[in-house]
């Protein structure tokens, strides 16, 4: 079974970001509309993408940071509507703002018919409303519907947004919109003529970046940009969607695009944390000493500390009743550590548990580090990406035998030595009191992330399959399962198992579902259930046909589409081992059981081997399947490789769903 990566969203949400998502804006003091060409008016087909619903002829955003008291963002957009979907997208606007913080002005919109005549938005068409009010804070919005919008017209609109004390530095400007754009223009004016620096991601600029323009503005123009589209198994959006990050000289006191300088600043903050953590050592010295007494190796000492922190301290981050989403680092360090040390137990958040682990490891004599790390479900990080929001506290680093190791006992379900999949193969910044070092966090192997599935079935003469199933999850498979469902009730977890079966086999009757070892991360997570599937085998007059690969029965092909836009990304290497025993009726004989041919790709990253052992005398078939994927760490494929990736996975699915024939004995 393949895992899909759903592109994650950044956890921090800025209001400016919300406005950008909800709106598309323009400029104009007294509703001045720019000239429009006959070709634009008469245009009947999109230029950038042949099947586009709407296409922006111009999408211009002007950002003026010259006034220290406000940031002015003016938007001017001209869109040709080609069909109903395009009309739906641009028929109404709802532009939110926070009263007292930002302001929306100079809204104007009209439609231009192919004959050049226009219908203007009237003042009475614009509605102002309070979207939400909490205490004295109010989110308001200006909303309007574009009059007489129909396929074939051009919609043109503009508005200005003023943000009190807003700044250009750190702004993220999209270089690809949700619709195709013929001309994408950004005009930016930094504060009092400061030097502008732009860093481009997922875009090749080749000298066509921001250039000096009039009145202190810099201008960037991009042409004929297709719409951004999401796909299954694609890398994180930040790795495929082009954007530019703005900075101005003097904005941070240093040149933010000198990576070494930039990360050193983050290192200073990390060093303070390390010092604070080391300061706790005296509180936990005795506790640590007792805990590691008699441990033979450094690893054993670490394991004992890890297990203590993870199991003896109640992790409040995993408890809805005790979770504190407002916790600060001050709260973490202000814990009563002496009480924890005295009692040998206590409670704390994930961060607290990690800090405790760091303090105890320090007390045990380990060389400890504060570790910031990226998440591979957000970004494939490199140090040139000078964005500290991409590197967040990830746990405690230990330098042992020349190796930098990362531990995260604050993750309740991660056993010693394991991290969440998105930390694997990610970049970590190990910070000590006086140094910092980049380290690539190791990726686990396919064998580690194993799903071991066993089934014992009987096939009746009427084609009914009945028996028991056991599924054992190891490594990331187990950790993911636990992380995704710890907030669910036991019944909900059981229902999820049942639903997963029913999605594949709609007439299955699933019962006696159990889940073992959910809270014991030292053991594999085990699901067990009984199942009965009427008419699992298809019958004809003399024969029965059945798919011995029960676990892949009814699974859809992972790559159904012929073409693809983005690279293909699997979260981590994994493997599956299936062993299925099926007893069939003695009145039938199996007809020359042939195992499907083994499947593998050229590099050996994916392989699927099936063996079928038939014992006619015992009326029994033993089906074994051994699938590995991401071997040698190959989890990312270029889009150019799509046809070969699809071919392999189609072949895997074909092999997995092959049928056997039973013939009635004469």
């Amino acid at each position, binding site marked *: 079974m393949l895992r899909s990566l759903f592109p994650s969203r950044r956890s921090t949400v800025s*209001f400016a970001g*919300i406005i950008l998502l909800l709106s598309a804006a323009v400029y104009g003091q007294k509703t001045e509309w720019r000239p429009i060409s006959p070709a634009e008016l008469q245009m009947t087909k999109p230029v950038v993408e042949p*099947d586009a*619903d709407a296409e922006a002829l111009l999408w211009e955003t002007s950002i003026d940071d010259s006034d220290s008291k406000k940031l002015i963002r003016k938007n001017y957009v001209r869109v040709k509507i080609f069909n*109903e*979907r395009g009309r739906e997208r641009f*028929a109404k606007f*709802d532009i939110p703002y*926070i009263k007292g913080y930002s302001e929306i002005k100079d809204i104007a919109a009209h439609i231009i018919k192919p004959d050049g005549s226009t*219908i203007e938005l009237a003042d009475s068409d614009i*509605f102002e*409303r*309070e*979207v*939400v*009010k*909490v*205490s004295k*804070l109010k*989110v308001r919005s200006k909303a309007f*519907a574009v*009059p*007489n*919008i*129909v396929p074939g017209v051009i919609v043109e609109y503009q508005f200005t947004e003023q943000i009190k004390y807003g700044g250009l530095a750190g702004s993220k400007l999209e270089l690809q919109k949700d619709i195709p754009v013929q001309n994408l223009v950004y005009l930016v004016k930094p504060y009092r003529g400061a030097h502008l620096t732009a860093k481009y991601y997922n875009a090749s600029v080749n000298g066509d970046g921001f250039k000096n323009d009039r009145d202190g503005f810099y201008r960037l123009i991009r042409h004929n940009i297709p719409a951004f589209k999401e796909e299954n198994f694609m890398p994180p959006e930040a790795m495929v969607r082009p954007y530019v990050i703005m900075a101005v000289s003097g904005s941070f006191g240093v040149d933010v695009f000198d990576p070494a300088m930039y990360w050193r600043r983050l290192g200073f903050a990390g060093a303070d944390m390390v010092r604070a953590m080391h300061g706790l050592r005296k509180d936990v010295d005795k506790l640590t000493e007792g805990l590691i007494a008699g441990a033979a190796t450094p690893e054993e000492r670490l394991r004992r500390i890890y297990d203590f922190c993870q199991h003896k301290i109640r992790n409040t981050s995993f408890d*809805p009743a005790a*979770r504190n*989403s*407002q916790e600060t680092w001050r709260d973490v360090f202000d814990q009563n550590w002496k009480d924890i040390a005295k009692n040998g137990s206590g409670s704390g958040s994930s961060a607290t548990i990690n800090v405790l682990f760091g303090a105890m490891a320090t007390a045990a004599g380990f060389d400890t580090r504060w570790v910031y790390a990226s998440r591979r479900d957000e970004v494939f990080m490199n140090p040139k990406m000078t964005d500290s929001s991409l590197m967040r506290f990830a746990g405690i680093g230990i330098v042992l035998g020349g190796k930098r190791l990362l531990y995260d006992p604050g993750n309740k379900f991660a056993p010693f030595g394991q991290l969440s999949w998105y930390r694997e193969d990610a970049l970590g910044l190990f910070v000590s009191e006086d140094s910092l070092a980049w380290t690539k966090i190791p990726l686990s192997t396919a064998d580690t992330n194993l799903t071991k599935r066993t089934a014992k079935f009987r096939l009746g003469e009427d084609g009914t399959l009945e028996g028991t199933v056991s599924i054992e999850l190891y490594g990331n498979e187990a950790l993911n399962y636990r992380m995704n469902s710890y*907030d*669910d*009730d036991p*019944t*909900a977890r059981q*229902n999820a198992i049942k639903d997963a079966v*029913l999605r594949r086999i*709609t*007439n*299955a*009757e699933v019962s006696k579902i159990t889940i073992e070892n959910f809270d014991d991360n030292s053991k594999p997570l085990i699901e067990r259930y009984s199942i009965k599937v*009427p*008419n699992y085998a*298809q019958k*004809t*007059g*003399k024969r029965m*046909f059945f798919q011995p690969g029960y676990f892949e029965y009814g699974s*859809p*092909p992972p790559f159904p*589409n*012929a073409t693809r836009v983005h690279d293909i990304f699997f979260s981590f290497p994994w493997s599956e081992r299936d062993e299925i025993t099926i007893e069939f009726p003695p009145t039938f004989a199996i*007809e*020359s059981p*042939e195992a499907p041919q083994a499947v593998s790709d050229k590099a050996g990253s994916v392989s699927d081997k099936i063996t079928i052992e038939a014992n006619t005398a015992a009326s029994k078939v033993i089906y074994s399947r051994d699938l590995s994927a991401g071997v040698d760490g190959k989890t990312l494929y270029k889009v150019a490789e799509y046809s070969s990736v699809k071919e392999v996975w*189609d*072949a895997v699915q*074909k092999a997995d*769903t092959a*049928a056997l*024939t039973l013939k009635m004995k004469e």
Partner: protein
Amino acid sequence: MKNLTKLRQNIVVLSVLLFGLVGSVFAGDDAPSWVSQVAGSSIPAYDIKNVPAVVLLDEYVASVDSGGKISTTSRYAIKILTNEGRRLAIARGFYLTSGSKVTDIDAWLLPPDGKVQAFGKKSVIDMVDDPDDIYNEGRIKAIDATDSAVVGSVFAYTVTTEESTLFYQDQWSFQGRLPVLRGRYSLNLPSGWAASSVTFNAPEIRPQVSGSTYTWELSNLKPITWEPMSPSVGNLAPRIAVNYGPADAKGRSFPDWKSVSTWATPFYDSMAIVDDNVAAKARELTANAKTELEMIQAIGTFVQNLQYIAIDIGVGYGNGYKPRASSIVLSRGYGDCKDKATLMRAMLKALKIDAYPIIVYSGDPDFVREAFPSPKQFNHCIIAVKVSDATQAPSVIVDPKLGRLLIFDATDAYTPVGDLPDYLQNSLAVALAGDNGGLMRMPLLPAEDNKVERTLNVSLTDSGELKGTIREHSTGQASTGERTALRRESAADYRKTLERWITRAATAAKLVDFKTTDQFANAAFDLSLDFTAPAYGQLMQSRLMTFKPAFVGRRSGTAFTESKRTTPISLDEASVIETATFELPAGFIVDETPEPLDLKTEFGTYRSTYEVKGQQLIYKRHFQTKRSLIPAEKYAEVRDFYGKIRDAEQSPVVLLKK
């Protein structure tokens, strides 16, 4: 009313993100005695697993004064039984900026550890009810305690409101999907006023009357679980409809359906304004129309393609029942359902064709009940066009007073004139035609008018490759489904949908080409698709080849996965006819075909046949259902029907090498 929409929840989340945890929570406060009292209720065991919460008390008290002003107090308490139930710890009170207000809202959380948390004014979020509307006076005051709630907590709130009522009528449902220990609806009336009620979905609930206070109450209501193809909760949960007022409550109470028509008709009539622009547009649109039906089609198509935009102002004063003037709707080019119906009516009027607005309930054809004449039962507006005998269409009905009427929904852009969305078919609705108006039943279009005819012409090679063409001709609501998919999805996504459809049948199938033809005016849609599917036929021992002749399934499946059922099953009129002709590979003969299947039930039929003609296998299947509401007791029969079809369609044909 009991559930916040996702959008509203997003606003709550946005509020929390923007402003931090909303307001202050005071721990250690006392809860009111009624909360402490209901918190101690014992919870029965339910057959359904994983019930997220149980409603301990759902009480609504309305006090009416002689001027028609109403003060209401809601008291609501739930016990949270699962983690999923935590999201239900939200208090809410609805109001309109015109004509009503929430005067107070308070909430309490009683966690299992007993420390009461009280949520006061600073915790209140005031937000729009429907963020999708350009403007809507409906607002919600809410208190969100989901962050603090844990399993075992009791969450309780009170909301008090004041409003001026338009009608001396009300409706009250005693439950949503959650089980309810006690539900109570009370009405305090001025002296000399009286109340009466009708009960739906349950035996009659009689009120307890004390002076001029009427109280309806039910206890120990079991949960209503979600099941596929079941009626809406509004058709399952016990509910009452109440009429009250003084003896001469004219205009605020409705003794019969005719009075609903006479009350609402002027609102619509006055807005169907035929000015020069409306008349000119009507003439322009129908310039080439030769028949009455073509004129209606031309106007209908224009109106249904106007953008749907709702702007609700003055709802509290009754404007929710009034459309905007047709002249304005035309000039702005957008409107809501009643705006569209009114514009269409005005344009038809300019062409000397009479039409009437129809108010109807969208979402459940069985929701409206004849026993409760009231405009409050409806949420949608469509149109009935008076037509001559020359106009023939499936959606024409005959009304004893109004004559032949063509029913049309000008809001649904995918269902043409002559057809009607399935969610409106066979429902009760009111024609607003003054004294001649009243309750009528919308047409039910037969399965024959709602059909998919599929033809496969395919060939199978000796390596098992299948290639050929699938053609589908859909009519009626089946064509609406196809049209909706084509128009709503981008061209690339529509192609992907088709690719998924055929790769579900054969893993490595490739879509070679496809073509769609939308005959919108005829309520028909054609899809033609060329494909190849390598190794569709499975070769065994080099002498056998098997393949399933039921190559593709429906694009939306029907899955009765549970062995038991508690709610009735609601089926629609539908018909699928398929003829698949397989050219078999040379050198192979048909060794076995599955048994033909012939099913006949009171709600549907299915027939499949196999015929071998030389090197051709001709496979036919015909599936048909009719609009039915089948009691849960007959679930096994329904499941068996669909199960046998599924099994038959999984069965292979066996070819033998000569």
